[in-house]
């Protein structure tokens, strides 16, 4: 799998891979909630943990760890870097 390049959903990143958030499409409230946690467009995000089946992902943003539900993570578009 190539590690850089075209935009993809956060859940398509592998553990240890990083990217820049391009857009968040999880609805107004959730998007705002994430932005208040420091995860807005342009933020660098690293996937720490993925989980079995369709479980959540654990990411690191602004030096803090955050767990995001799968459905939400799938609506976050990132550019791997």
């Amino acid at each position, binding site marked *: 799998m190539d590690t850089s390049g075209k935009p993809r959903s956060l859940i398509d990143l592998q553990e240890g891979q990083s990217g820049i958030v391009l*857009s968040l499409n*999880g609805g*107004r*409230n*959730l*998007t*705002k*909630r*994430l*932005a*208040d*946690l*420091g995860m*807005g*467009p*342009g*933020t660098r995000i690293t996937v720490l*943990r*993925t*989980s*079995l*089946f*369709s*479980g*959540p992902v*654990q990411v690191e*943003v*602004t*030096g*803090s*760890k*955050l*767990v*995001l*539900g*799968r*459905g*939400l993570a799938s609506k976050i578009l990132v550019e791997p870097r």
Partner: protein
Amino acid sequence: MKDNKRISVVLAGQGNTGKTSIFNYYTGSHQHTGNWAGKTIEKLEGTLYYKDYTIDVLDLPGIYSLTTLSVEELIAREYIIKHKPDVVINIVDATNLERNLIFTLQLLELECPLIIALNMVDIAKKKGIEIDTGKLQEKFNAPVIPTIAKRGTGLTELMDKVIEVKENGHEPGMIRYGREIESCVDELSAELKNTGLLYSERWIAIKLLEKDSEITNTISQIRPELIRRKETLEKRLEEIHGHDSSLVISDERSHYAAQIVSETAIMRPHRKLSLSDRLDIITTHKFAGYLVMILIVGGMFLTVFKLGNWLSSVLETVFSSWHNWWIASVGETFLASLSWSAIEGVLALVEIALPYILPFYIILYILEEWGYIARISFLMDNLMHKIGIHGKGCISFIIGLGCNVPGCLSCRIMESRRERFLTAVLVTLVPCSAVSVIVFGLVGKYVGLIWAFGLYVFAMVIIFIAGKILSKLLPGEPVELIMPMPDYKKPHLKAILYQTWDALKEFIYIAAPIVIIAGVVIQAINLAGWMPAISRFMSPVTVNWLGLPAITGILLIFGILRKELILVMLAAYLGTTEFAEVLTPVQMITLAVVSMFYVPCIATVSVLWKEYGWKRALAVTLIEILFAILLAGLVYRLLSLFDL
């Protein structure tokens, strides 16, 4: 007129930053803390007397924003604006500096007198995070005091600073954002003069651009003409930045916070991975994580069982010698036997219930303080979605294993009302430590450990099925999980001991009196000759359907008060804990199943009532009674087919 020698202080900050730890230190209280965000669900008030001052301290639930996304956030900002506390202490977690400062900026926007407590500097130091507090202080134009809440380090200086701010006043720092945002804010606030609102014009302007629903509503009522203006300005921001103006403001804060962190903090990790990260390699691993979880949770139950049995048998030998002594020295008169029955009730409570309940609480508190609960939420999120809620619901379930009352209350961490109720109902099905007394002390001890474990697995299956059905009945989409993941922390021993002591106190002050009264009532009913009548009244259910001895009828009635009473009162009534003499293994299991599900105890029902109204509380209670009786009867019939 505000009292000169009185200071009001509010502790505000994101979740899991140590607010309650600081509150406890100042007010000498033992409010529960835990290493996950969302432990405190209601504001806590306390008082401190220091240097001639009476200081009222208020602990708020952790929040991440002052925009109205949740009730807690609305309450927090209303409180700060309306009550105008003398000082707001913003507790900042030094190990999550950047994220925490985003919230600090929002507090600064409120233009309240602010002091920053830079907490958890011990962990930050271990992680190699160096923060230049002097510089931070300059950037925010607010005092910054490094603290270690659980040791009390820095908390005296912090309070001295509070007094200093109160005495000398403090010009709160003003935060200036980027040029485009500031020009929009200025244009809008110029038109917001004399609104009669308590908020500053600048703050209202920011909130309007941030599309805060409450402020927008207020303004559209008193200045409807301004809404057009606001929308034009929002468009302007959106055109420049390419996304929603509410995000533009949040982003601006994030950048500001990032900028400050880059200027004031240096990261020099001693090693590549911290201890917490190394633990997480296995504890949140796709496969190994589940194995570890089963081991930890299984180990917890096994410890409770083994330790409980051992303690119980030690106490039994001690207490039985007391009985002999009582007979020898007080005699066996009518009065002596009656008073012994009261004593016996309490002894039975101590002997049967305490040995299981206490270890249960201690282990749960350790897991909470350590930070493992959040890992369980992460691992279980997927499964929880199948029953219409998300991973945080697991936190309530685990708290419910100790006691359903805090379990139901903790459901407030769920975001929507639907999920709160759904989780609360499921929590009432979680076998609490009182039920574990029956599961371990009766089934585990006399039928076999495997059956006790089996009952827990059975309860999980029932909860899952109930969740499936409920989530179908209550319409709505499950909310997605957003949860800050805390680092593992060394469990704070003092906090654990105090919290355990609380549980013990409840035993002494509530359970013991109930047992004595219940014991006397049962004796009185017995002496009055009413027992057969009551037993007969209950017997269609207890004897005919459930196959239990008639005496269980009255026990199940008392069990509504506290579930461990079922076993405790049985022991007191029989005058022995040799339950095998009166119950067959099948009856034991049947009794355990009814006890598990038949009714949330009275305290839990009253919480449901308070949180969700009497109709729902009553409905849940009635349905669970019927369900438990039906289920236990089936279990009885099924098990009777086999020879146990």
